[in-house]
């Protein structure tokens, strides 16, 4: 495998393609500055020879925008269940890209969703391989890929 998970260019291009196809949203890269807003996070595990975790984090506003695109409604009409659904499915699609390029034999798990007042979920026993930060207008998001230590 010539591309490393740490490759931020790969990560951003994968993210950009997923968001263009699913939501017709053009992502732009942003620097990794401190993020002090509430976040909704979707986690998908990839299990196999390597054990990876893909975490998608969005502001609640962006999560509502994503859900509104999929359900074809206004962001303010989106329910919590629809926001969770959209976050889970987006993380699932991104995990599919990670799997295809870095661990083709892995099994993709079902998404788990959590909400944080401030900050991010930290996965114990895993190291952060890659973190990609992007924005749509003023709405922030990030994707992090973790690998279980020793896998």
């Amino acid at each position, binding site marked *: 495998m010539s591309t490393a998970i740490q490759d931020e260019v790969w990560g951003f291009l994968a993210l950009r*393609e*997923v968001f263009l*196809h*699913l939501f017709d949203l053009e992502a732009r890269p942003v620097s990794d500055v401190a993020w002090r807003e509430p976040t909704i996070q979707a986690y998908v595990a990839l299990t196999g020879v390597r054990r990876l975790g893909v975490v998608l984090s969005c502001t609640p506003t962006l999560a509502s925008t994503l*859900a509104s695109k*999929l*359900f*074809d409604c206004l962001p303010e009409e989106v329910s919590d269940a*629809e926001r969770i*659904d*959209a976050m*889970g*499915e987006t993380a*699932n*699609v991104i*995990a*599919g*890209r990670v*799997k*295809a*390029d870095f661990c*083709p*034999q*892995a099994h*993709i798990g*079902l998404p788990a969703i959590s909400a944080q007042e401030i900050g991010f979920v930290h996965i114990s026993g895993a190291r952060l391989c890659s973190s990609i930060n992007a924005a749509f207008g003023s709405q922030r998001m990030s994707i992090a890929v973790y690998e279980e230590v020793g896998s």
Partner: protein
Amino acid sequence: MSFPQHLNILLVDDSRAIRALMKRELTAMLGSPKFYEAGDGAEALATIKTYAIDLMFLDINMPCLDGIETLQHLRTERRNVRVIMVTADGGHSQVKRAMEFGASGYIVKPFSRMGLEKAVTRALVGFVPTPAAPSSPAAGAPSDPFDLNVLKIN
């Protein structure tokens, strides 16, 4: 591209968002198909016993009964519905398994309208619409005893 009218399509995905997206794309492509929805494989198998489904979109990664297991059940029951697998897994190993169980094709999420159209075109090669009304129960399915149209008085 012209497609058969009045297709009965079953969308099987645990994500209601993806079902909503597929409905919009398929309506734009096919005109006015009749949609049925299921959130997992077990629901899909129950639906297909009741309605004459022409085409099924079957997500691979679902809770309870996943797409591959559902397809195996369908083939064991000798149901010849045309099935397009839906997956986020670009690795294709599970898609290969699905094709061995007789899936007509697959699409990888996030799919484009062109990709969806190609998959539907391929799946419907040789398709002959069933003479039954679009939403009529599948052959052999029990009729509704409370439906006045089928009530017989001896």
